[in-house]
Every structure is written in structure tokens, then in C-alpha cells.
């Protein structure tokens, strides 16, 4: 599973951090940081994060 966040689109609403804190986080400057290659058992949380993003900045690909 590959996760890509379009940082030109991301507005730091942080909904993904709430849905999948193991994959998405904010650094000290409130910038989004994320694990681009998360373990497969996190798929449900990652897809929930993508679905919850108000600006649809998160792309999940691969099996």
C-alpha cells in the first residue's frame, strides 16, 4: 500500500491524523508528516483517513 499526500492541496485540517494517527502526524510547525508505505493492517484506517480528508489530498494505491 502506498500513500501520497498532495501537499499543494493539503490545508492541514488534520482529519487524517484523527483517523489514522499511526500513519499521519503533524510536526512542531504543524506541517503534515506521514508514512508513505504503511503496513497492510493499517489499510482500513488509511482509507478512512482518505475518505475523511475535506480537500481530498490523500491518494492510496496498491494492494
Amino acid at each position, binding site marked *: 500500500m502506498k500513500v501520497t499526500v498532495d501537499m499543494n492541496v493539503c490545508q492541514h485540517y*488534520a482529519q487524517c491524523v*484523527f483517523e489514522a494517527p499511526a500513519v499521519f502526524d*503533524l*510536526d512542531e510547525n504543524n506541517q503534515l508528516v506521514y508514512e508513505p508505505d504503511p503496513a497492510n493492517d493499517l489499510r482500513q484506517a488509511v482509507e478512512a483517513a482518505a475518505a*475523511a480528508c475535506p*480537500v*481530498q489530498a490523500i491518494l492510496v494505491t496498491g494492494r
Partner: protein
Amino acid sequence: MTSPDERRIAVVGASLAGLRTAEAFRTGGWQGSITLIGAESHPPYSRPPLSKGVTDAADPFSRLALRSSIDIQATWVLGRTVEACDLTNGVLRLDDGTTLTADAVVAATGTRARRLPLDRRPANMHTVRTIDDALALGKALRHGTRVVVAGAGFIGCEIAATASQLGCRVHVVTFDQTAMIAPLGHTVGAALQRRHERSGITFHTGRTVVSVQGDDRCCDVILDDGTTLRADVTIEAIGSVCNTEWLTGNGLDLHEGVLCDNDLHAVASTRTAIPIAAVGDVARFPNPIFDAEPRRIEHWQMAVDTARHAARTLLHALGHGQPVTNPFTPLPSFWSNQGSSRLQSFGLPGLADHVEILDGDLDHDFVVGYRRHGSPIGVMVCGGIREAARYRRWLAEHLTDGLVPSAS
């Protein structure tokens, strides 16, 4: 008995909640057909940005269109409304006179903007609910435009801040004592109102609009104390009305949305022949993390959460999947951008009887805790989003403490 593949779920409403429900049916294994019926001619798009900045008129959908993680294989009926729904026979009648049969119905019709009770309404009066609304308003706002916003809730304050940043001269009229008093309480509402006032927005609190006089280009907005505000643009942001008329006649409780049980099954005076669930802004349901009182929660995240849960409820009613055993305990969560202020709220601060500042001060970044009967019921974070995630976890633990079985 019909084979499952021949059955159809009708999702009435094709915005965020309807789309996410359809997705959840497919991921839950539904092989029958799904028909999504939407009043707007546009495919689903994200509404929150509409009030938080000017919508890019050149290509509004590149940023706003909602994506699906899977192919939902749905039939789309857009630009049509359902005028009537017969839950005994499973028949929906559309506004073009056609009918559609269904074996289950999802009520995802959301809300429309509440309007001021005016005798006449000039063409320069706007609401902001749809992308078409936002594009029309965006065209009307220019540097120096005189703007009157009726309503000082989140939408009203977001629009006022956006217009002010564009260089408009903005007046906000609200019947309440301060901006955002209902969702955030007096202390926080007053502090946020002061920020708006410092950026040049004028508030008229404790006032109502009694009439609007003038032509389609320039009006006088008359308040109940006789104040007259000259306006090139007037925006009505005084709340919402549920789109539930189409469900009349089925024995449902349609007072303020669709009354549902905790599983989002619509509550009927007599059992409906086909199952119906409600999602998103129209679903009025009890949430055991607060109490037994059914409430509607008009938040983005709640549309996503109710979609997932309602799909499981209906799939089980249609003979698919496991019964839903855990109580549905979604944590209300929303954000608001107002000028330079970024607000993030969790829980239901509006229910609080006690407010305390947990961190920072009201003139800068701050965190406010809300309690009811001594227990935490909400948190509002202004500024640091990173803190928001931490306070959200803290609140969620408090609110779900003692609920059985374990709810996440």
C-alpha cells in the same frame, strides 16, 4: 424470494454522506444495485471550502470533487429530487414523474439554507450551501463591496472573514448576544467576535433583520432598532432546514431531521415494509457518549461516520453481514477557518454548563474545556492543530469511559 443481485438500494442525496454510504455498501459486500439520486446536477463535491474562501470560478471541481477509493458501480440520477417515497411498497417518485422501486432507502438529503422571513428578496441576497451559490457570491464580492451577513454562526463568521479579507466592508447581524454563542458559549464566542472586530468587521448583536428595501444592485437592510445598513450584497447565514418533505406519509418522526435509533434506523410509528436509515445532516440520533437525547450533527466528519454505520445497519436488515452490536458512539468533530483563526472543536461544547481555559489565552492561541455536570463534554482548540489531536484523544477517552462494550 428474489435473488440478492436483483435488489436495489436507493440512496436519496448524492453528496458526501450519500457517496460514503454507497461505498460502505460495496465494501460490506453488497452485490445488488445502488442508485444515487442527487438534487444538484454536479457529482459529489466537498462543501466546507465553500464558505472559507472564494471558490475558483475557472475550475471549481478540480479541488472540490469527492473521490471514491473503490468503484461503487452505482446508477447516478443527478439534477433530480425525490418528491415522494412509499416505504410500504418501496416506490420512490421523482420530480420528472418517473418512479423507482427500492428494497432499502438511505435518507441522505441534507439541509438547505434557512431564509429570512421577508416579503420580497432582491437578487443580491445570497446563501452559501451549494457550489453554484458560492460561485455566484464569489462574483459579487470585490474590494469595497458593502456586505451585510445575517447570522453569526460558523458559516456566517467564515463568510464575513472571507469577505473582509477581500477588502469588503462587512456588517454582521445576529439575534444572539455574541457570535457563535450557541455552539461555543459566551466567553469564547465573545473572544472570537473581538478578533473579527479588530479586523474591521462590525457586529450588530441582539438584532434582527426586519426588512430589505431597494433594488437588485443595492439595498437597505433594516434592523429591528431602526438601524439601516446599505448593502451591495446581503448573505443569509441563519441556519438550515432539513430536506425531509419527501418522506412524509410513512409514519416517521420528521421533526428536525429524521428521528433514528442509535443504529441510524429511522424510527417509525408502525414498522416500515422496507428498511430505511438516515445519514449525514438529516440523521437525528442518540449518542450514548452524551445522553439519550437524539440530535442532528451537521459536521463533515459525522457524514462520514454515519455513512459507515448506516450501511452496516441496512446490510444486516437486508440479510448481509453481522448484526451491529457495539453502540454507535461517534465523536463530533469539526473545524472552522475564520480569517487568521483556525478553530477545531470536539464533542458538544454547546451542551456545557462550565467553561475553562485549559491552555493559552483568549487573545492568542488557546484551548478551552467544556464541562457538563462536572464531566468533560467538549474541547475547542484555537490555533495549534497538533494540540488538537492530543485533546481529542483525551476527550474521547473521557466520553467513552464506562461505555460497554468497548467503543472506539
